[in-house]
């Protein structure tokens, strides 16, 4: 099982039957492949609908927020961009799953910009993190060169301040305590020790007294 699959599988277990969920582009999209039996979620797409399904017949008028052809489930509904963000900001989306460049000890998230290098724009990410009831970040634990991505303080421009509820990596599951009170390591992946997670994390991690092995 590769890192991405571990992350996607674990996040899938966080979603409850009937949840309305917005999945970011890339890894987060994989989450819907690993939902437990009996758990049906409704996917919201910020370009204007709920009820996103895998594509069957390509319809040029129907794409997801990444511009890729998709389908619709029975019960889907289309709307305009304003209504889409009424849903998102208004607390009508139960969870959003996004990738991250950096998360810090206060639950700050940076995932939209690397000054001078990558400036694609924030799209709907800033609204999603300020409005979704639960913000789950799914990302590899460290950058490709091994440097930590879970930091004391983000140094990249923020997507949102104090917005992250949960971080899932291939090494473990970390819960963010509200009000900037720190990070708790709640689960470690099979074969991974808490010490290894701590070594690869710049922010201080408190080990949960109920630490368990990551459910997959």
């Amino acid at each position, binding site marked *: 099982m590769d890192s991405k699959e571990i992350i996607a599988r674990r996040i899938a277990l966080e979603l409850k039957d009937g949840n309305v969920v917005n999945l970011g582009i890339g890894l987060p999209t994989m989450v819907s492949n690993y939902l437990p039996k009996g758990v049906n979620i409704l996917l919201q*797409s*910020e*370009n*204007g*609908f709920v009820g996103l399904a895998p594509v069957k017949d390509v*319809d*040029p*008028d*129907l*794409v997801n*927020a*990444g*511009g890729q052809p998709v389908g619709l489930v029975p019960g889907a509904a*289309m*709307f*305009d*961009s*304003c209504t*889409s*963000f009424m849903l*998102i*900001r208004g607390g009508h989306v139960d969870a959003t799953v996004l990738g991250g460049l950096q998360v810090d000890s206060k639950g*700050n998230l940076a995932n939209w910009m690397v000054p*001078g290098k990558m*400036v*694609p*724009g*924030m*799209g*709907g*990410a*800033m*609204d999603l993190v*300020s*409005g979704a009831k639960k913000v789950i970040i799914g990302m590899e634990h460290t950058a490709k060169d091994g440097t930590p991505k879970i930091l004391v303080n983000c140094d990249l*421009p*923020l*997507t*949102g*301040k*104090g917005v992250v509820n949960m971080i899932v990596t291939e090494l473990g599951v970390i819960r963010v305590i509200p009000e900037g009170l720190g990070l708790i390591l709640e689960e470690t992946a099979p074969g991974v020790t808490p010490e290894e997670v701590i070594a690869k994390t710049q922010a201080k991690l408190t080990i949960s007294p109920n630490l368990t092995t990551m459910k997959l």
Partner: protein
Amino acid sequence: MEKVISIEKALDKINDGATIMIGGFLGVGNPPTLVDALIKKNVKNLTLIANDTARPDLGIGKLVVNKQLKKAIVSHIGTNAETGRQMIAGELSVDLIPQGTLAERIRCGGAGLGGFLTPTGVGTIVEDGKQRLVLSGKSYLLEMPLRADIALLYAQKADKFGNLVFRRSSRNFNPIMAFAADVVIVEAKEIVEIGQIDPDEVMVTGVVVDWLVQGKGGNA
């Protein structure tokens, strides 16, 4: 009043330096005939208000490649590397705005409101230069309305008065932009007689639509 006009007459209304809203999301819901004609007319120094700049070969993206924009007000540049290049080279000014805030600012401009308070962007660089208000212990940014000289929109169906119906995810920014520009030009895939769309099925009233152009179909 006859609202159905030729593509040439529609383009007469757009001049160098105009601020233009264009509907669509990564190319879907752009008005393809109007965008292609804009390129042919080669109007310059446009300020674009749209969700994104799509792809170099798709929709609005072609306006970037053809260097017709001086400024783009968007939520992201799409997968258009040329927008990124012009932005970094200083040839094109790009204002990046959170998508929900962009949509709401456009609605605000069309609704006669003076601004609104949103939690989006608090504590980020989006806050720069904006007023922050704290109400009931929660922080909000004061965001201002956005309007344009011209809106170029796409609808699946229109009656000759300009009542509009949209299809699937091509709806996106089109309905809200219809309220927020001085001149609203809609390209419709299908144009029907007045009375052929049931009043309950109209998604945007023709009251806000100035001109209609028959689409040629296909993508921009």
